[in-house]
């Protein structure tokens, strides 16, 4: 077994990698064996010794190809050797099946209605072959079975006559024959079984088989998706048999889609649904569920976040100002957290994405952006099953070259020197005491000292040269960064009887971020119980409890970038290096430091990070409960409730080591600079604790609390044989409440002593104000007040839908829903909005004429039309106020501002969607797929209308816009055994094209700056990118083309600020790529599987970064970006530096970044994920007292395989951003 040896080597290597990630390559061991070479490269990657990007991409390609081909080429056939152990008396057949499933990994495939006719069985088998056990189970049952690879198909027994008692007397002969389908096409891999002897064989590619049997015996032929057939052997001639597609089997095992309100068979679903099943989700070890959904659903575009989780957008942007996030539903209830954070990814059974009106309209007002329905694993009546999953995810170290866009020291200083000489400055530090807040850089201190005659030019040059040789990158990497590691442990337990089923899971996750002092611990407990009290009544109760403690004290990119590249964190002797921040050294030297509360007023980033503790604690609980009552046949009543509560506590503690504290205390003093005396100190010495920050607001704690209460009638019944009706009707009430509070700051706070001191003179207020160091009066201290917040949203809904299917060929569906919210309006009728949909489906395959078309196995056509809604909640029909929650320090009164000018004409946004889809399965299921076309027209979309300011405001939101989204979504898949090999290959290719236009928008004056900043333009897509035509430089001043091509200077802002952009800006395309691709490949052989995911976005554009010409010096810590190198290099496509003393330099940044030459295609294709797993053979697994063991390794973000831009950028993650890191995951899954 060649392959086995290889694979053993592979897993051994993998184990080595797990235990010793720092093991470097051993050059002497590099052999010509490509496999070993690749492994070594893999090791190198993990050890962090990365080859340059291009060669790495090549490596990924090679690695992928190699793994795919290795598995393909080196495998040999292997027989069934599955064994089963089972003991039980009068056990339901299902129970035996589930035991077999868990012991063998085989899956049963049956019509549940069939099984209802089955009798319980009594078995006592020890390590008996699978077929034998199955045969025993079927003894005396009206059932038969066939094994198809790892699927066991249970069919109705078609022949059950008495056994042939004469069989011994008739000699066995070789019987041959051909199996074809209704269109005379051969069926390969059909199972042919001699009923009497149990002898089995498979047909070949021509549908041909040979088997030994006796005349009079019965051959049973089975094939997935076809009615099994039994034929009595009458002679020795060839037996030619035609199988007909099965009706019952295919129908019952067909995929179902969950809308959250009901589960509908896809065969009868007229809407556009995409279902991602457990089989795929289980293969992708993730921390956040959204990561595992990437690339699998056409039309669901994701914007990746730096932690690898996603914000999804379903079928384009449908709203300009309202929330465009899809609704997230867990087990039938919408959850308030749309980031999937409160879902344990290990608990997820399947995810259904509802995309069109018919699918989503049942969610009414909140469905216009699509709905993502998560169904969690439910308990099944079975023996106790335990599943333990653990993985470790190690990432590459953060690459400072990626996260910083700062120039290196030589370029940085070169520019500082040039700018100083040429006077590119505004408000330069001028030696005044009030400039004490203006810290210069080390280089600019030298330049300033030379300019003011304090040092000689020689000394300055020497100083600058020595700075040029310093780079802090090494220290930053060593002291502020670390290798990110995430560990996840998940344990789930399920089991029970028909009357009481239970499922519980426990998750623990520990994440260490790439920046020191950033990370979290997350604990999550879920359980779900189902109780069958009586035949007609079922209860369920479930709960999820999550606690996360996150630390965010680490350095931020901004903080690191605020350091000049030559500012080091530590001196050679290990003491803290000099970093400048908010303090000018020249002025600091004039202070009597000994008299200040803190004599040490220095800043150092490392010391700052060490001296602070920022934490967020998040505790959330979600409880769901419900009852289902069967009223009459087909009619049930559901009553369900969900309650959610989430509490987040945020705090930022700064010790006295932090500059923040020493600065706050030292600066808020009454000080006389003439006599150099300190008269009063307003802030007590000691640590400070402040609220945390979310967005721009301070919070000490935020509590969200919500409930949803739903009552629903369900009807599902088939009348006669041809009429099937499914209908639901219900009501829903929900409320979401948020309470927040920002506590007063704690001053003089020593957590170890549990002491805090109130500022001795108070916080300052009207009539009682303080001075500060530089003598400003009227100073008040921060954090004197408690700031309170409260919000409560309520919704009420009535909904219903129904579908009717005739003869399994034609389905018609319709739905209605009305929603209302407690939105503030004078006219209560405006709160309600009706939503509806109609749809139809034609199962073409069932038509007689299709029998002639042989290559088509399944074909159906869907069409829907309907209307969804979206509430733009940021504005109201009435003018709304924001009344302060505490006294305003300036006026000494409560004050209020207008939070919303109000618009009495405001309405709901409406989205009308037409969807046409076709589902098909061709060439004996070798090619399955679907194609959807949609046309989504948003009307009454809230757009911003510019108003004359005489109305009191310059812009107000009106329902004046229309947006069209049209698109095609294709998903193609195959799942087949590669002929002549034991390899199964499955792939799923998704492609989506979205065309987006704002078709209508009243907005008379769209200025250049507005368009460049993402302003909406009629006739153009959301996310349009515009550029200026660059005309080059004339006598030191760069020009762009203005109206009618008239040259416009860079420092003349009239064009940018007041010119109508459409007259002179070039439309370059859209930043939202219209084409998206996902390609998921899966290869399985023996117990191995390899899964590779490619994703791509095509057709969009982005702007290449350019040097910020408005980089002024002398007035603070300058940051010179790395693109300054292009200007030094004299790139003719971009402006050169301004002339000396040019006063308009600071305005160049309006035009500079928007030049036409900077636009490039953002298309790229990326290998997103490679996963390899190995499942221990059942025999070995049971030998170590488990029922299944799976080992897996995964790499995420291995690299791009194609990018259209010539700079090698990932356009989504330009330098200066926290790009998701490449990760390596190793994990183990054990089942008991």
């Amino acid at each position, binding site marked *: 077994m060649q392959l086995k040896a290889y694979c053993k080597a592979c897993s051994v290597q993998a184990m080595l990698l797990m235990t010793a990630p720092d093991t470097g390559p051993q050059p002497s061991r590099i052999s010509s064996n490509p496999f070993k070479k690749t492994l070594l490269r893999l090791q190198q990657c993990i050890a962090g010794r990365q080859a340059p990007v291009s060669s790495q991409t090549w490596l990924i390609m090679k690695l992928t190809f190699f793994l795919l081909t290795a598995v393909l080429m080196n495998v040999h056939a292997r027989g069934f050797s599955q064994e089963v152990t089972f003991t039980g008396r009068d056990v339901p057949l299902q129970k035996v099946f589930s035991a077999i499933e868990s012991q063998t990994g085989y899956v049963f495939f049956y019509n549940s209605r069939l099984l209802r006719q089955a009798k319980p069985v009594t078995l006592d088998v020890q390590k008996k072959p699978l077929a034998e056990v199955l045969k025993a189970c079927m003894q005396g049952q009206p059932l038969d079975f066939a094994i198809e690879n790892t699927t066991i198909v249970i069919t109705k027994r078609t022949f059950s006559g008495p056994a042939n008692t004469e069989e011994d007397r008739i000699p066995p002969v070789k019987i041959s024959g051909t199996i074809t389908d209704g269109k005379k096409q051969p069926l390969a891999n059909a199972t042919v079984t001699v009923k009497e002897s149990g002898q089995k064989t498979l047909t070949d590619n021509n549908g041909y088989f040979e088997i030994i049997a006796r005349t009079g015996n019965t051959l049973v032929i089975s094939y997935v998706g076809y009615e099994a057939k039994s034929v009595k052997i009458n002679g020795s001639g060839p037996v030619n048999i035609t199988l007909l597609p099965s009706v019952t089997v295919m129908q019952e095992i067909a995929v179902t889609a969950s809308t959250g309100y009901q589960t509908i068979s896809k065969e009868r679903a007229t809407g556009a649904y995409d279902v991602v099943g457990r089989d795929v989700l289980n293969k992708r070890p993730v921390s956040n569920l959204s990561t595992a959904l990437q690339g699998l659903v056409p039309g669901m575009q994701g914007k990746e976040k730096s932690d690898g989780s996603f914000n999804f957008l379903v079928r384009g942007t449908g709203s300009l100002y309202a929330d465009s996030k899809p609704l997230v539903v867990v087990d039938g209830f919408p959850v308030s957290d749309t980031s999937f954070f409160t879902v344990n990814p290990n608990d997820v059974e399947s995810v259904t994405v509802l995309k069109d009106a018919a699918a989503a309209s049942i969610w009414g007002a909140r469905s216009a952006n699509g709905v993502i329905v998560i169904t969690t694993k439910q308990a099944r009546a079975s023996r106790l099953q335990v599943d333990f999953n653990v993985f470790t995810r190690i990432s590459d170290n953060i690459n400072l070259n990626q996260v910083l866009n700062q120039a290196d020291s030589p370029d940085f200083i070169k520019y500082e020197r040039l700018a100083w000489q040429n006077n590119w400055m*505004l*408000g330069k530090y*001028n*030696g*005044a*005491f009030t400039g004490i807040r203006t810290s210069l850089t080390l280089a600019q201190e030298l330049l300033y000292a030379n300019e*003011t005659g304090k040092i000689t030019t020689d000394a300055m040059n020497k100083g600058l040269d020595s700075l040029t040789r310093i780079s802090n990158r090494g220290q930053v990497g060593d002291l502020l960064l670390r290798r990110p590691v995430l560990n996840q442990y998940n344990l789930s337990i399920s089991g029970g009887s028909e009357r009481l089923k239970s499922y519980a899971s426990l998750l623990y996750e520990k994440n260490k971020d790439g920046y020191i002092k950033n990370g979290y611990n997350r604990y999550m407990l879920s359980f779900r119980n189902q109780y069958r009290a009586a035949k007609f009544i079922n209860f369920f109760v479930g709960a999820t409890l999550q606690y996360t403690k996150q630390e965010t004290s680490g350095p931020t990119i901004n903080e690191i970038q605020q350091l000049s590249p030559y500012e080091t964190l530590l001196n050679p002797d290990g003491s803290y290096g000099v970093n400048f921040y908010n303090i000018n050294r020249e002025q600091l030297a004039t202070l009597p430091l000994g008299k200040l509360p803190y004599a040490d007023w220095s800043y150092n980033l490392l010391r700052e990070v060490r001296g602070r503790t920022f934490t967020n604690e998040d505790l959330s609980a979600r409880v769901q409960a419900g009852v289902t009552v069967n009223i009459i046949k087909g009619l049930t009543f559901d009553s369900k409730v969900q309650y959610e509560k989430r509490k987040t506590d945020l705090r930022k503690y700064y010790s006295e080591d932090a500059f923040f504290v020493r600065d706050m205390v030292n600066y808020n003093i009454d000080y006389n*600079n*003439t006599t150099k005396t300190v008269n009063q100190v307003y802030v007590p010495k000691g640590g400070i604790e402040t609220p945390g920050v979310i967005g721009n607001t301070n919070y000490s704690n935020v509590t969200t609390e919500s409930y949803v209460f739903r*009552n629903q009638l369900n009807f599902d019944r088939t009348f006669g044989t041809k009429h099937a009706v499914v209908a639901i009707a219900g*009501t829903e*009430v929900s409320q979401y409440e948020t309470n927040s509070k920002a506590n007063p700051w704690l001053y003089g706070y020593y957590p170890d002593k549990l002491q805090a001191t109130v500022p001795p003179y108070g916080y300052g*207020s009207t009539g009682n*104000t303080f*001075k500060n160091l*530089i*003598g400003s009066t009227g100073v008040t201290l921060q954090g004197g007040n408690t700031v309170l917040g409260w*919000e409560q949203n*309520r919704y*009420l809904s009535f909904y219903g839908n129904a579908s009717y299917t005739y003869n399994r060929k034609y389905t018609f569906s319709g739905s209605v829903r009305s929603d*209302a*919210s*407690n*939105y*503030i309006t004078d006219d*209560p009728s405006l*709160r309600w909005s009706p939503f509806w949909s109609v749809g139809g489906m034609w199962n073409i395959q069932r038509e007689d004429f299709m029998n002639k078309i042989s290559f088509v196995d399944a074909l159906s056509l869907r069409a829907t039309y309907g209307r969804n809604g979206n509430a733009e909640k940021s504005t*109201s029909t009435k*003018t*709304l*106020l924001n*009344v302060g929650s505490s006294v*305003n*320090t*300036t*006026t*000494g*009164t*409560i*004050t*209020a*501002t*207008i*939070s919303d*000018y*109000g618009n*009495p004409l405001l309405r709901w946004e409406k989205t009308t969607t037409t969807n046409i889809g076709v589902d098909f399965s061709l060439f004996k299921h070798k090619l399955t797929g679907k194609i959807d076309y949609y046309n989504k027209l948003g009307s009454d979309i809230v757009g911003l209308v*510019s*108003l*004359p*300011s*005489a*109305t*009191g*405001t310059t812009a107000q939101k009106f329902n004046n816009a229309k947006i069209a989204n049209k698109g095609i979504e294709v998903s193609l898949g195959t799942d087949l055994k590669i002929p002549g090999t034991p390899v199964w290959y499955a792939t799923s290719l998704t492609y989506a094209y979205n065309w987006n236009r704002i078709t209508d928008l009243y907005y008379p*004056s769209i200025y250049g700056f507005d368009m460049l900043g993402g302003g909406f333009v009629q006739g153009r897509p959301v996310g349009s990118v515009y550029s200026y035509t660059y005309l080059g430089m004339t006598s030191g001043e760069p020009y762009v083309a203005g109206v009618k091509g008239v040259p416009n200077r860079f420092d003349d802002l*009239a064009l940018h*600020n*007041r010119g109508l952009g459409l007259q002179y800006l070039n439309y370059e395309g859209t930043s939202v790529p219209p084409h998206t691709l996902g390609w998921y490949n899966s290869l399985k052989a023996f117990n191995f599987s390899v899964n590779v995911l490619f994703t791509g976005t095509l057709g969009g554009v982005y702007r290449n970064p350019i040097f910020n010409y408005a980089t002024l010096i002398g007035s603070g810590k300058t940051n010179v970006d790395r693109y300054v190198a292009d200007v030094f290099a004299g790139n003719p496509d971009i402006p050169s530096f301004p002339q000396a003393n040019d*006063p308009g330099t600071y305005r160049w940044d309006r035009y500079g970044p928007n030049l036409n030459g900077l636009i490039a295609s953002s298309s790229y294709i990326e290998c997103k994920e490679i996963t390899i797993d190995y499942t221990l053979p059942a025999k070995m697994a049971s030998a170590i007292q488990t029922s299944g063991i799976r080992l897996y390794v995964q790499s995420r973000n291995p690299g791009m395989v194609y990018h259209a831009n010539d700079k090698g950028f990932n356009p989504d993650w330009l330098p200066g951003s926290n790009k998701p890191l490449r990760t390596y995951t190793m994990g183990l899954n054990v089942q008991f």
Partner: protein
Amino acid sequence: MPVVLLCGCKKYLEKEPKKQASIQTTDQLEALLNNASAFVQENDYTATSSTDDAEINKNDYKNNPGQFTPEVLYHYLFTTDQVVNNIAADPLWAGEYKKIFTANLVLANADNVTGSDAAKQRLKADAHFIRAYSYWVMANHYCLPYTKDNEGAPGLPLKNTTSYTEPLKRATLKETYDFILAEIAAAQEVTADDVDPKLPWRISKKAIAAFMSRYYLFVGDYDKSITNANQALSTAIAQLKDYKTIQAGIQVKYTNPNVTINFSELNDWTAVKYYFWPEFYYLRFTYTPGWWFLPSPALVSLYDQSNDLRYKWCMLSQGGRYFSAGTANMYRYMIFQTGSMLPSGPTVAEVLLNKAEALARKNDVAGAMQAVNILRDKRLSSAAPLAATMQDDAIKKVLEERRRELPFVMRWYDIRRFSVNGYDADNISVVRDFFQLNGNTIDVNTPKTYTLPVGSKRYAVPINGVELDASKGQIVQNVY
């Protein structure tokens, strides 16, 4: 269950999603009017740059062009096209109409909210006064001076409601002034007689009288101006600040080149202090977005540099250094907030000057001198009362004192007024010796003289082009 829900659902949905969001009580409206920062500031480029109080020296411009924003230059050179087209917004126009919106909101809701009748009466009086004051400020910018001849000239769009669909056609100048008077009459319902020192942004009868002394001075009704001035001056709260009590502030020293600026303590004050400047009847400030009022040599020369404390504390000879203009010789006129805010609401000082001028114009020379010397007593370090025997001399002296006391704040209004008051001796023609403006850029190689002649059509500040666009033709530009 659905039935129960249906009955209860209207009530269920009436619970508002936010607290105090919709307007329901007089307390909320009080809070709105007490948000002083929303009302007190007038962002005024015209006041900053369009009068003879301001002058940009040609050489200073040449050496420090970056110190002067396009907005300042376009107003400085009395342009119409650039002011209309090359400035994104007119903060004065937008700001005053925003105040009017809030006043309209208060008026629309005052009778429908819960609260005492007294509270409602107070709110409405304040709202009417806010509208009157803002329309007066705008009429004195965007319209021609108010005379019999100009009664039919374009006035302002008179917004009476918060509706976006209310027509914005410009009323005539007479209609505009009639509206202002009607608003003042409505504001007279206020019961508070004198200024509330804790709430100087709220009105009182004294505050209205102070404003009306200005109003009548401007329409040439000197008797009524004096009557109102006297009523205002009977205040027990508002009082002149004796400049002799102003302390030195933090001195700022520059080393490159060496410059020392001796600021007054006022420079260090924040809003929490200067909102309570004792001279105010009603709080308003002229604000310059560039934070720099650059006085002309003519203005500077009006002060007794050794004795006038206004020169000492407000007229800083090297103040141009403050934001580090390359050379140090430029002046900066400053009172509050780093030289960005000047008191512009009616103050005791202005009322004394209104009274003095009205008396002088009525040929009560002694009365005029008496009034003006009350002010001078608090402004000079040693007494130096003005004296005049003839009416022309008295008018000249009072107007000089007015210019010294209220530079930048009143000058634009006064230049317009002087052109139509039937007294030619006070007429002002503003002349600029500057450079050629080519389109929107200054050509520093071609000197050019610009003049704002007496009675210029440009006395009406052009309305911003964005505003005209957005009004879809409802608002019509002034004729030039």
